[in-house]
């Protein structure tokens, strides 16, 4: 039994934020959950999938976030409770459907979880999805701690059913990936039956066809805004909005999400609990007008503490403007006046610094011996390391061949990158092969455009890379576009048999689904051929064949070609404990820094399994780290590295 399915109401467990969210959904009786992997969101669907194995619900890793939201919506339309989970960028993918979903509304409770990444700890952006709630007019809830992660998620289903619309719950990395004590409630026994009613009128919330047409838009849009007003009314008394502090504080902090913990810590550090009030909001769109108004009337100064853009700040300011006759003039601090930064994540330190300035109190220094200890520990801390691929990673071998083929081709060919571990192809780890990097599937889409510019004199070969999961997620439409418009591109599918970067979740190209059931696998090569591309398949560990295939395809140059470089991720469960080759390095043969090599393996190839022995001036294999992929034996110009098939 997985942790989150323990039926022990009243007891507390140490749960990761994402597990708490999953538990909240289970306590709410969620029956369908869908998502697409993406840090920091992936553990929600993974936790629910483990519960699904016990037959409680249906869970899938959808092909992308839009489809995940659609799958979850179908359950809601069938009067079941459903959830879709994704990272911030996934909401953009789902946004087109989300606009329509929110306009018509939900039937069974439907919750969209967006796990966001201020500070871009595992993202290529700091997307802020809170704006969608305002833009597309549905409620937004933001848990402030681990208990709330569960409780707000659970309550979000009730709210969704109360107003009959989708509700967004927004988490951030520090909440999703931190862990804390969570008191459990009961798990429901009852499972609702699914039925889809469509006999009613086109505008029938619970029994009509679920659709919006030009002639129903006004009615639906009005209905949607009524739902929002109803939500705001409910929020006035929500226990997730709490105030602590004096009746008339010197300064009121309005905050939400994990920032609420930073504020508490900063206030504790500065010892200003008697001067500062803390209004922590769990319901951040629409704002509870009377509640906020009451607190604004008691202060002259307000600091809004939130991460990224001034979403909360601006919404509070709008209320303050509307209520100004009663609140009087208020000085606001936050993003817009530069008190807090609008980029990266906040911390107790940043909040403490802001408070110290606003209240003219000094931030107490830590004890001198503590500071000394920290300095000493930091001095010998982890050595600086280059971001790189794992030992035995197929991407290193793939980029090696792509880089070398492009260099030999000598026409300034370039690769449009995509989202996955292989995004590191931008760095020396991938020999700086990637020259563009945007969203999922964008590599091939952008390449499709570059590939049309031959008529304007662009005579550089255009390549794209994309992973196997990314291929299904968003690259297929781009490929179809390129084929149909006869773009001249070479798409390289880096097929490592899984959604490797986020923890090896299955995708439609694999024989298993999220719940561990057998599933039909879709053949990427057949899809590409079906679209009309010329397709080759190579093992990237065969460097010679990969390079010569690439060179030959580069030379051919016309139309859409696809090269599938198929080799399983070094961390895949199937591979993890097996070394296909025992590697050895003969120091007598290694020419080291001399002319003829100059440390190709450790200076350029850069597999962490290869170590430069500074004293001996020879390369060495780190047996503990080496996974025995055998590729370095192919690059060693001296033949010093040998591979022997492992017994």
């Amino acid at each position, binding site marked *: 039994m997985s942790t989150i399915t323990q039926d022990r109401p009243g007891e507390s467990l140490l749960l990761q934020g994402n597990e708490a969210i999953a538990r909240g959904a289970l306590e709410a009786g969620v029956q369908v959950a869908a998502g697409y992997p993406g840090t920091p969101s992936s553990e929600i669907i993974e936790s629910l999938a483990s519960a699904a194995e016990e037959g409680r619900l249906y869970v899938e890793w959808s092909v992308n976030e839009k489809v995940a939201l659609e799958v979850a919506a179908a359950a809601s339309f069938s009067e079941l409770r459903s959830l879709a989970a994704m990272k911030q960028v996934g909401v953009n993918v789902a946004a087109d459907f989300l606009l329509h979903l929110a306009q018509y509304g939900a039937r069974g409770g439907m919750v969209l979880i967006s796990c966001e990444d201020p500070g871009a700890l595992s993202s290529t952006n700091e997307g802020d999805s809170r704006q969608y709630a305002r833009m597309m007019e549905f409620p937004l809830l933001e848990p402030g701690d681990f208990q709330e992660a569960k409780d707000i998620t659970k309550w979000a289903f009730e709210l969704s059913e109360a107003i009959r619309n989708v509700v967004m719950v927004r988490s951030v990395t520090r909440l999703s990936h931190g862990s804390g004590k969570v008191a459990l409630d009961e798990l429901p026994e009852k499972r609702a039956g699914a039925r889809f009613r469509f006999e009613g009128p086109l505008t029938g919330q619970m029994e009509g066809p679920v659709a919006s047409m030009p002639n129903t838009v006004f009615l639906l849009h009005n209905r949607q805004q009524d739902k929002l007003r109803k939500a705001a009314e409910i929020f006035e008394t929500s226990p997730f909005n709490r105030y602590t502090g004096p009746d008339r504080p010197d300064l009121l902090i309005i905050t939400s999400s994990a920032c609420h913990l930073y504020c508490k810590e900063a206030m504790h550090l500065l010892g200003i609990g008697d001067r500062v009030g803390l209004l922590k909001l769990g319901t951040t769109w629409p704002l509870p007008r009377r509640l906020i108004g009451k607190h604004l009337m008691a202060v002259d100064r307000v600091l809004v503490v939130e991460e990224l853009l001034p979403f909360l700040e601006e919404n509070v300011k709008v209320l303050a403007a509307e209520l100004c006759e009663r609140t009087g003039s208020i000085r606001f601090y936050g993003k817009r006046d530069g008190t807090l930064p609008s980029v990266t994540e906040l911390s107790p330190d940043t909040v403490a610094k802001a408070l110290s300035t606003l209240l003219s109190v000094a931030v107490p220094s830590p004890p001198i011996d503590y500071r000394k200890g920290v300095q000493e520990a930091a001095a010998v801390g982890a050595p600086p390391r280059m971001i790189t691929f794992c030992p035995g990673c197929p991407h290193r071998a793939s980029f090696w061949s792509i880089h070398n083929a492009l*260099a030999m*081709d*000598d026409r300034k060919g370039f690769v449009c990158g995509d989202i996955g571990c292989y995004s590191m192809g931008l760095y020396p780890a991938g020999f700086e092969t990637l020259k563009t990097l945007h969203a999922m599937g964008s590599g091939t889409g952008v390449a499709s455009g570059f590939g049309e510019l031959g008529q304007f004199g662009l005579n550089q070969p255009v390549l794209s890379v994309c992973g196997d999961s990314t291929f299904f997620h968003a690259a297929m439409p781009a490929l179809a576009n390129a084929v149909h418009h006869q773009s001249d591109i070479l798409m390289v599918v880096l097929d490592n048999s899984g959604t490797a970067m986020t923890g090896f979740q299955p995708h439609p190209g694999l024989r298993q689904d999220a719940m561990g059931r057998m599933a039909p696998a879709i053949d990427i090569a057949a899809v590409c051929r079906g679209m009309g591309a010329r397709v080759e398949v190579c093992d990237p560990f065969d460097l010679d064949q990969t390079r010569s295939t690439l060179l030959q395809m580069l*030379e051919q140059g016309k139309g859409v070609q696809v090269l599938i470089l198929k080799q399983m991720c070094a961390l895949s469960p199937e591979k993890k404990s097996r070394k296909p080759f025992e590697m050895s390095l003969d120091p007598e043969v290694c020419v080291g820094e001399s002319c*003829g*090599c*100059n440390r190709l393996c450790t200076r*350029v190839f850069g597999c962490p399994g290869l170590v430069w022995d500074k004293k001996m001036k020879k390369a060495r294999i780190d047996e503990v780290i080496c996974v025995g992929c055998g590729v370095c034996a192919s690059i060693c110009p001296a033949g010093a590295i040998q591979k022997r098939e492992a017994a």
Partner: protein
Amino acid sequence: MHVFGPTELVEEVHKRGLCVGCGACVGLCPYFLNHRGRTVQVFPCTLTQGRCFAACPKAEVDLDEISRHHRQRPYKGAPMGDVEQAFAAKAGPEMPVGSFQAGGVVSALLIYALQQGLIKAAILTGRDENGPKPAIASSPQEILGCAGSKFTTAPTLAAFNQAVSEKISPLGVVGTPCQMTSVAKWRTNPLKRDDFVDPVALAIGVFCNWGLDQRQLVSFLAERTDVSRIRGMDIPPPPANALIVDLGNQKMTISLDEIRPFIPETCHLCPDMTSEWADLSVGMFEGRPGWNTLLVRTQRGKDLATGAEAAGLLETMPMPETNLAHLREAAKIKKKRAFMNMNKRGLLNSPDKNGIALLRVSAEVARSILEA
């Protein structure tokens, strides 16, 4: 001769358009590779001195030093270099049948050298469906398989480096003037290595006015014919002004004016038409199809030619002075033009900011060539 490293090679040779793709730096290390006639550095190398630079015929070539090493005298700048004997020559009666460009003299000399055990293998330029290809030939059949001029630049010396690394010795090397310059430079042991062994027992140079960029020529020809059908090419002496492409059952004639744009700029900076640093140089014999011009430059060359003739593999006739004068004049024109071009680009003697010149000769010789 000052030897720099790969960074300078890329900066001063590649980026200035001086690389001719001779293959001298290819196969020494993992960094310099040649693909379809073009040499590139695939990854930077940080060494301050390298064999790549040492072997390059387009970087710091000190002709005086080369001449003193190989000919025991200073470089004088004679249009055809040092010539001991000049012949009209062709393969002798003992030679197997082959499809030679002209007289089959190169093949005859190599087969003789191989038979006599003077060399173990020959470094040659063969051809496959993708174009010219470096080859290590260790039998008469393999030598005959490489016969025929290629007209495009080729990384022949990559095969030389491969043979050296495989310790195949002694070697015969056949190449164009740039390649013969590289071999001659290399044989002076520019890196002053204690363990240096000269593996070259025979250097045969071919005449060359210029080469053609392989990629440009192939894509030009590909628009006109199926490139895989090409059996050979020929540029008949003036006034033909044409490239004749042998397609087996038919011949295609292309005006030289159409392909001249494919001559790499670096060929216009080359002062050597007759492969002055070889033991023997071989070219066409103007006005006498089926015959070659054979210039003998060294004692080693003289012994080989004499031996080959005695063995019935070679047939020679004295070269008429008018022909020789004609050849000398053509060589003089090429040399003078190259010196002027180098001078104009600041590549002759006068070092650039890094102190690297393409070619070094004494000021006196430079003047005499420029004023010739």
